[in-house]
């Protein structure tokens, strides 16, 4: 491939293939201590025999490599990202600035708490705000992401029951649940029992009653659920679960719908996790970092992870903030140190920016936007191909079925999603929840303007109209992306999960 080939720049080249012996970016600081031979300091048995094959590359080429890679990513700051259950809302730029302040970014996690009072106060204030938002009195910020919070919740449930001398073996999850819920149940040592969905999209109460035996430790519920529907029977559900002696767990992935309107604690939930990387604006980073704090009721509090951030002493700023490790009934530590503090800084900044009114407004607009887009997509020319799965007022998201498009146009939800890529928008979550055939799960968030929502509806209409005349266009989409449809089956069948010297992936040192 020559440098004049218009495709030369397109073929992916890894950083390892750009390596050339002798090039470098790093210059070591001065060697200011005696240059004792390494062999005298380390046992021969533990010396590396050959250096790790890391790239040898200059700083300009290193920067170009990663800037070029970055240009192959679609991202939230570029365009509409209605990925259901992921809450892709705007990430305010202030947050990056305050997170980078040396007092935050350069603070060692084991610094004496006396010299980390600002950080501990921030955590304490965030705990208080999250507690108020969820309506549960005690918060641990420790879990690293939503699924880690779920695991914490079930370990807390186990500790709670064991403390009462009870042994329970099952956890209920609705068939609409996020995949993390049943996966967590297994990791926490329980057996999954699925609960069905009623015709209105809520929990099937009869099914729940029949399965809520005294062997059940917990019901894990998302409300609004993954269909974007608020379960109107939530109080009855809580009653059934509590009568069985089980805890009620709130998967906070969809909390963005109800901030300042209703609180899980008031609905009867015992344990809640928050996704700070969804509801509270931590940028998603292409797959993390996140944070998954949990809030719990009084009866669960003794078991919370250690350490807890507490304030001791007087009110009005006179108190000192401490890390309390003395928690005899605690489930222990879920991870190192105090949690993803950098995420806490951003989420705390968000809560302070919006305040009580702003958080409620955010949920109001998220629900307004979702219902508006749902209405636009219910118009003639769209709804006959993409009917709404459950025709009710939705909360912050809704689910369409691609059943009609499959039957009438011969294109699948996957084809519609791939064709959207050519229109410069991110597709919705597809093929989830599982109980909806050819599902498209759409969450616009409060970030979007009416114009953006209209534009998306127009794109959907255009794709369907185009498919009516030529379905092959969608079936073979996308066309304008850095690569087109990839062989995922082949990748899984013959996994290549690292680069090896001599791999024939691409020409080494292209153009040089």
């Amino acid at each position: 491939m020559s440098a004049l080939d218009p495709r030369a720049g397109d073929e992916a080249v890894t950083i390892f293939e750009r390596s050339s012996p002798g090039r470098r970016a790093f210059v070591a600081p001065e060697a200011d201590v005696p240059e004792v031979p390494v062999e005298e300091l380390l046992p021969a048995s533990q010396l590396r025999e050959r250096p790790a094959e890391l790239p040898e590359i200059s700083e300009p080429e290193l920067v170009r490599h990663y800037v070029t890679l970055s240009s192959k990513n679609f991202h939230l700051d570029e365009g509409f990202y209605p990925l259901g259950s992921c809450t892709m809302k705007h990430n305010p730029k202030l947050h990056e600035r305050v997170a980078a302040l040396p007092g935050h970014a350069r603070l060692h996690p084991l610094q004496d708490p006396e010299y980390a009072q600002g950080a501990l106060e921030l955590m304490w204030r965030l705990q208080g705000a999250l507690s108020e938002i969820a309506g549960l009195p005690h918060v641990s910020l420790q879990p690293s992401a939503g699924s880690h919070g779920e695991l914490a919740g079930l370990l807390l449930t186990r500790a709670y029951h064991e403390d009462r001398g009870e042994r329970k073996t099952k956890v209920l999850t609705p068939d609409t649940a996020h995949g993390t819920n049943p996966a967590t149940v297994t990791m926490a040592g329980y057996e999954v029992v699925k609960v069905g969905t009623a015709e209105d999209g809520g929990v099937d109460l009869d099914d729940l009653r029949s399965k809520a035996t005294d062997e059940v430790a917990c019901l894990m519920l998302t409300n609004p659920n993954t269909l974007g529907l608020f379960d109107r029977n939530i109080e009855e559900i809580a009653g059934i679960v509590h009568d069985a002696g089980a805890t009620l767990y709130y998967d906070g992935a969809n909390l963005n719908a109800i901030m300042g309107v209703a609180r899980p604690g008031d609905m009867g939930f015992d344990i809640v996790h928050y996704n700070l990387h969804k509801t509270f604006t931590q940028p998603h980073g292409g797959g993390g970092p996140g944070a998954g704090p949990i809030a719990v009721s009084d009866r669960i509090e003794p078991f919370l992870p250690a350490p807890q951030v507490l304030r001791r002493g007087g009110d009005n700023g006179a108190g000192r903030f401490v890390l309390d490790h003395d928690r005899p009934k605690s489930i222990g530590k879920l991870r190192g140190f105090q949690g993803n503090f950098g995420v806490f800084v951003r989420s705390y900044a968000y809560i302070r920016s919006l305040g009580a009114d702003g958080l409620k407004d955010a949920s109001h607009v998220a629900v307004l936007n979702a219902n508006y887009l749902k209405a636009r997509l219910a118009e003639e020319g769209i709804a006959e191909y993409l009917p709404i799965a459950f025709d009710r007022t939705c909360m912050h998201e809704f689910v369409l079925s691609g059943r009609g498009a499959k039957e009438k146009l011969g294109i699948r939800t996957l084809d519609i999603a791939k064709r959207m890529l050519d229109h410069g928008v991110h597709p919705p979550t597809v093929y989830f929840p599982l109980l909806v055939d050819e599902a498209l799960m759409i969450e616009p968030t409060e970030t979007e303007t009416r114009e953006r929502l209209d534009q998306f509806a127009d794109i959907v209409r255009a794709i369907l109209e185009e498919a009516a005349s030529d379905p092959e266009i969608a079936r073979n989409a996308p066309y304008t992306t850095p690569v087109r449809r990839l062989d995922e089956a082949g990748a899984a069948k013959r996994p290549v999960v690292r680069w090896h010297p001599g791999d024939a992936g691409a020409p080494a040192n292209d153009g040089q």
Partner: protein
Amino acid sequence: MLGAIGAGSVEELFADIPESVRLGREIDLPPGLSEQEVHDHLAALAARNRHADAEVSFLGAGMYDHYVPALIDNLLSRSEFLTPYTPYQPEISQGGLQVMFEFQTAISELTGLPVSNASVYEGPSAVAAAGYLAKLETRRTKLVASRGLHPHSRAALRTHAVGYGMEVEEIPLTGEGETDVEALAAAIDDDTAAVFVQQPNFLGTVEQLGELAEAGGRTGALVVCAADPLTLGILKPPGEQGVDICVGEGQTLGNRLDFGGPSFGFFAASERFLRKMPGRIAGETRDVDGRRGFVLTLQTREQHIRREKATHNICTAQALNALAGVVYLSWLGKRGLVELAELMLRRTHYARESLGLEAINPVPVVREFAVRVPDLDGLFERARAERINPGYRLGHDYPEYEDGLLVAITERRTREDIDRLARLVGERAGVAA
């Protein structure tokens, strides 16, 4: 918009929420603030923390004050890396997916193990994830952990092991701060699913990893090593010494201290565990035009496909932090990593000699070492006044080292810094002039 919806008000859209569970009041939080006010409030909080630029710190114990090059701040702040979701649509996520593939390659090189995932949360929970893999693989009930494993890793392992129904047995360190290989051998039996050691261990000791792996793996238990990826620049890779799974804390690779997170954890293993690994894995493939590309692969391990049969529940991991890791390793490069690790090694030994204190682990160390300090409180008092942080008090986690101090050295701690600490140590009450 309400007209298009057919609703009279936004409140109507919430009609499904029963009145009885409505909040019925405003949430009790302060009103919103302007950008400037939020900035100033957070800056005031930050100013009350004594951070690593505001003192000379020898504090390590799992996170270390390394220099992070400017290009990392620059690249990580790009919206293209900062603001996408997990790459579910590979055609518009080739940047992030290729970064994962490169990250996996770098981790595989460092650890000497053929397969790596694209990151887990952080170090201690990565240790716990290895415990879960051992459970799935062996169906055995016991985990054996060296007391040289980071106290937080042991704690996280115990917490998670309750869930998957396993017990954790600890084995002691010798009088020289190494994992007691005989005690390890004695602790292993047919119920042992995995053995956990750390390289270098929590006291900084360079363990005889091959001997530990041989003793630990005797009965078919998996050998898990938690490693500091930076020191693997000069230490023999765990994968060349009989280790099955190598996990660790990635903060040392270009990540901030951030009061403990976010950083990343890594998880590398023998080929036979590829289909039991936790988390995302990027794989190389081709598109319909034959062009090279990358996808999330082996997803049938994962929660969103396999649900209760998944090999782990992890969804969101630490992609952005892993990006910092691979950029950092590329910045150091093949020779720079060795140079940096050798500088740390030499300064560490220089520091241990200079302090002239009784060593808890008088054996080879690489970036950190433990000593007994007769007047530990006095040293902290004198040092704090000079804005020097002498290190980590081992008594927090090891009652047997009540007077122990763990001293960490990075490329940021110069000879002059070390000499200052040595002078403070020498100024013991009744000893100083």
